[in-house]
Structure formats: structure tokens, C-alpha cells
């Protein structure tokens, strides 16, 4: 038997306001991703294959679940276009859906079941059935050779099902569900953490002093959590992984999502904290705490970014020394009316910080302009911007200030402009259809070797085919 999981984009629209960049299947409920509850349900029902259909990206989620081997079943993934109906998804996955009994979990919902009950619910069914709540449903289909024939409308509701559905359609339903499971039925599910006494779940590498920290159950603490002195945690509080609670703070009936820092002397009561956002689950109000001493997300990459900047600075220094004489020669003898310097305002960060950068405009292909490009003299002043940390040596394309550049930067997951860039190496400019693809490809595949290849190929490409580069520039 197989299971197809599909959550249309519109079902998880509310999450964008509270949990930006969290994939709906990866939404943690009591420190466990929603999809993992589905997997538990599938395992209980002797399902051997799961197809997860996604209409938004999540590398993190796929890295976590991989091929499902950890749970003893096969997980495969497929893509959906935003707006695809369930019928279309069945059609698009018909190879997967045919020739086996099929369970479909449709929508953003939580399945209420008991792990100790030998459910095996679907083995008893002799015809198609569904259990639904509003726009979400769990369907059961008997084996068919042609999934395109499945009629979703005619399916009968199963009144005697051994499980039910709770819709996750807003921040309140999310909070209520966590509270309900934690307070009333924690034993129904496999919850993460060590559970030495009822109502207490503690993860690995949790550091606190039992003499100065008060824990009131029920309480759940994830992995790698530090709780400093004179704090009170609980009752009914969930702390995710990688959290620091600073001294003299109180956390009651709250959910602290992973990677958060709670400052000292704070009282968090009936709230959800997601990175630097404090959310009231009852009203839906969310405030961003700007002062990082109160509530903030723990930056994972600060150290690696500093090391990267230093490495780029080092290589920039080498290029400054190497190209010093050619540049000096150009300034003395190589100036031409066809090579015009101009200062352009350009974006230098994802938050649209601007900086005036020197840009050399080539107006005509002449001997001097070809030599200028051949030796990449236009790049020389930019190496100094690498030393000051404004640019990387190899990074995203430097985009000038204008509405389309601004839109493009907003769409990119990160933006670290560099003197050398991947689309530039391929002679693709921002007006090209493929420019955005090249940029996103670079962002997801960047590494030291790739950056080195970009610098090398750009410098050599210019050296040996300056005419082509100038033609592209013109």
C-alpha cells in the first residue's frame, strides 16, 4: 500500500506571516515535523511507500527525511505547480498511484490517532472512503489501474474511522493542537526526547543547573539547549532545538521555536517565539523584536561568513599586487575617450544597502579598449571593495540601483555580490531570461572550487576573447 501527501500552497499561506521559510511538512509540532507524524501513521498502517508532493522548495526537509530508510519505508518526492488540484496531482503521479491501494493525505492537517492501537484501518476497507474536515481530507482508494478515473467527489465519508483530522489553518489552531497533545494525550504519539518521568521530555546536550533552574511539567526541551540561572520553564512549555534561555527569565505555556535566543529578565507567557518574532497565538499579533538582547535568532553562519570574507580579501590582495603595474600603465598610457569611468549606485547586500562603485563603460571596440578588457582592468578598483568587506571576490552579480534589480534581489534567497560572478562568466546579463536561473544555481552550488573556477574562467576568457566580451558589453 502507498501514500501520497499533498498540501496545496493556499492551505499553508498563513504560515508565511508567522513561520517564514518553514515548509509546511517541516512545521514542528512538539519538536517533531508534521510529516513525521504522517510517517508514523503510515507505518502503523503498513504502508511501504510515500510520495511527498511539494509546491515549494525545502532542501532542509529532504535532507531530514531522505529516502525514508530510517522509518523502514520508501519516500520519494515530486513537484507540483502552485494551483494544481488534487485530481491533477493524482494524474501527474499516476505511475506511483496505480496498481496499489492508496492513501492520500490532502491539505495542512494533523492526524489524531493512537500509536498503541493496531490501526490497520485501511485493510478493512472494501471501497473508497474519506475522512475530511473543511478543505483537508484523508482518502483511501482501492487499487486501480487507471488513477485518472478516480472521482474525488463521489467518495463516501467514513463515519467509523479510528482517527480524525485537526485542521492547521492558523496560528491559534497550531498553538491549540500543541497544547492539546501535550496536556491531554502525549502518549498517543512517539514524541522526541528522553522521557524518564511522565510529562517531561528532555533532548540531548541540555545544559542547566538543577539548583537554580525550575522546570515545571509538562515540559519538552529539545537538543542543544542552554538554560541559565534563576529561570522558570513550564508548565506546558516547549523549547525547540538550539535554544538559549538567558538568566532570570520565565517561560510559561509557550512554544519557543528552534534557533531562538531569549534574553534575560523576560516573561514569556502564552506566546510563541519564532526566531526574533514574538507571536500572540490568540490574537495573531506578531511583533518583531529589533533589540537582539531580548529575543533573536541564533546566527549559525557568522563565523563561516567572516572566514569567507577574509579568504576573499586575501585573494583580492594578491590580485591587487599582480595587476598594480598593468593598471598603472593603463592610467598613464591607456586612457581613451571610448573607455569612460562612471560611479554607479549598486546594491551590496540583500537588505538593499547601496554603495557607489566605479564602473568602466566601453563605448567602442578599439585596440585600447580590447587591451583594457583583456587584462580585466575594469575589475581593479573593485578589488579594494573586497578588502573593505563591501564585496566578495566571487559572488552574485553586482546589480545597479533600479526597480528590476531590487525585485530580483528580493527573489534571491541570499545576495552577496562579488567582483566576479557566475552569470558574468557565462556572458549572461541581467536582461537575459536565464540570468536568474544562473544566479540561483550559483547560490545553491557555490563553494571554494566553483569560485576559483569563476575567477579563472573569467580572467582567461577575457584574455583570449576580449572582442566577445566587449560585444556582450556593448
Amino acid at each position, binding site marked *: 500500500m502507498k501514500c501520497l501527501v499533498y498540501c496545496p500552497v493556499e492551505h499553508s499561506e498563513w504560515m508565511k506571516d508567522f513561520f517564514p521559510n518553514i515548509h509546511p511538512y517541516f512545521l514542528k509540532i512538539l519538536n517533531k515535523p508534521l510529516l513525521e507524524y504522517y510517517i508514523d501513521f503510515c507505518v502503523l498502517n503498513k504502508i511501504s511507500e510515500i510520495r511527498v508532493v*511539494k509546491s515549494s*522548495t525545502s*532542501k532542509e526537509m529532504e535532507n531530514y527525511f531522505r529516502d525514508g530508510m530510517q522509518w523502514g519505508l520508501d519516500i520519494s*518526492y*515530486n*513537484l*507540483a*505547480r*502552485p494551483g494544481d488540484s488534487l485530481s491533477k496531482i493524482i*494524474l*501527474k*503521479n*499516476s*505511475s*506511483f498511484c496505480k496498481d496499489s491501494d492508496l492513501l492520500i493525505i490532502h491539505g495542512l492537517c494533523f492526524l489524531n490517532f493512537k500509536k498503541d492501537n493496531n490501526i490497520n484501518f485501511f485493510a478493512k476497507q472494501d471501497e473508497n472512503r474519506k475522512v475530511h474536515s473543511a478543505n483537508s481530507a484523508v482518502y483511501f482508494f482501492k487499487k486501480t489501474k487507471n488513477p*485518472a478515473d478516480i472521482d474525488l467527489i463521489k467518495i463516501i465519508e467514513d463515519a467509523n474511522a479510528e482517527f480524525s483530522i485537526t485542521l492547521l489553518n492558523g496560528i491559534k489552531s497550531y498553538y491549540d493542537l500543541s497544547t492539546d497533545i501535550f496536556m491531554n494525550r502525549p502518549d498517543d504519539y512517539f514524541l522526541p526526547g528522553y522521557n524518564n518521568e511522565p510529562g517531561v521530555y528532555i533532548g540531548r546536550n541540555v545544559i542547566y543547573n538543577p539548583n537554580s533552574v525550575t522546570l515545571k511539567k509538562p515540559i519538552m526541551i529539545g537538543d542543544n539547549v542552554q538554560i541559565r540561572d534563576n529561570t522558570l520553564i513550564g508548565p506546558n512549555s516547549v523549547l525547540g532545538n538550539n535554544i538559549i534561555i538567558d538568566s532570570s527569565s520565565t517561560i510559561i505555556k509557550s512554544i519557543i521555536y528552534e534557533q531562538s535566543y531569549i534574553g534575560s529578565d523576560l516573561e514569556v507567557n502564552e506566546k510563541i517565539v519564532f526566531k526574533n518574532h514574538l507571536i500572540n497565538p490568540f490574537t495573531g499579533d506578531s511583533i518583531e523584536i529589533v533589540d537582539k538582547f531580548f529575543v533573536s535568532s541564533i546566527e549559525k553562519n557568522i563565523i563561516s561568513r567572516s572566514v569567507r570574507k577574509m579568504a576573499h580579501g586575501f585573494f583580492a590582495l594578491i590580485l591587487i599586487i599582480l595587476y598594480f603595474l598593468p593598471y598603472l600603465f593603463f592610467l598613464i598610457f591607456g586612457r581613451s575617450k571610448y573607455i569612460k569611468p562612471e560611479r554607479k549606485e549598486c546594491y551590496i547586500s540583500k537588505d538593499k544597502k547601496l554603495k557607489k562603485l566605479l564602473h568602466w563603460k566601453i563605448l567602442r571596440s578599439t585596440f585600447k579598449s580590447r587591451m583594457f578588457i583583456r587584462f580585466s582592468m575594469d575589475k581593479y578598483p573593485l578589488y579594494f571593495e573586497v578588502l573593505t568587506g563591501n564585496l566578495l571576490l566571487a559572488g552574485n552579480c553586482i546589480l545597479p540601483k533600479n526597480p528590476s534589480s531590487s525585485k530580483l534581489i528580493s527573489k534571491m534567497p541570499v545576495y552577496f555580490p562579488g567582483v566576479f560572478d*557566475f552569470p558574468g562568466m*557565462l556572458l549572461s546579463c541581467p536582461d537575459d*531570461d*536565464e540570468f*536568474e*536561473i*544562473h544566479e*540561483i*544555481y*550559483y547560490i*545553491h552550488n557555490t563553494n571554494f572550487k566553483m569560485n576559483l573556477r569563476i575567477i579563472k574562467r573569467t580572467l582567461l576568457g577575457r584574455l583570449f576573447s576580449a572582442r566577445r566580451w566587449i560585444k556582450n558589453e556593448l
Partner: protein
Amino acid sequence: MKVELTKQGEIGILKTIGRLDASNEKEFKEKFQSYLAETVYFIMDFSELDFIDSTGLGAVISSLKKATEMDGDIYIANLQDKPRMLFEITRAYKIFEVFDDVETAILALKKEI
């Protein structure tokens, strides 16, 4: 890289075998351009596509652009795990219909024609 075209009525099934990257994207574009004389409806069968990079994806997108300019369309079938990651991170899946087998893709495309 090898590109094979077979036809089922009006629909051209374009099977790409091997790698589609900067070294052969031009060849792919040229071949596709020549196939456009035969039909404008295509299923790109990626069951044996081992690797695709951004230039390869750019070629696939430019093919879609050309086909749609001539009122045609391109569906994708049998997208394997590694190429799928690229479709996902670049959000290219939002512009293509992706099916898990050629037969269903043909049925769906026939409905559109």
C-alpha cells in the same frame, strides 16, 4: 549527450540521454529548433538525463519559450532526483507541468491540444 525524437501523433517525445550542461546546451537548442519544424507539442522524457546545470535548464526554458510562441507546449516526464533538485531550487517547476511517466503526460497534453 544524446537527443532522440519519436513522434506519437502530433506530440514529439524528446528523450535526452546523459548530461545537459554548458558543453552541449547549444547543440540541444539547435536540435530543438530543427524539431520545431515537425511539431510544437513536446514531452521531454528525462528518464535518462543524468545531470543538468543552469545552462542546460536555460536551454530547456528557451525551448519552452519557443514552443509557446508558436502556440505549442512542453511537458516534462520522468524527472530524476538530481535534475529535480535544480528544477526545485530555481523554481523552474512552476513553469513546467511535471509528470512521473510519459504515457500520462501524453494523455494530459492531448487534452490540451
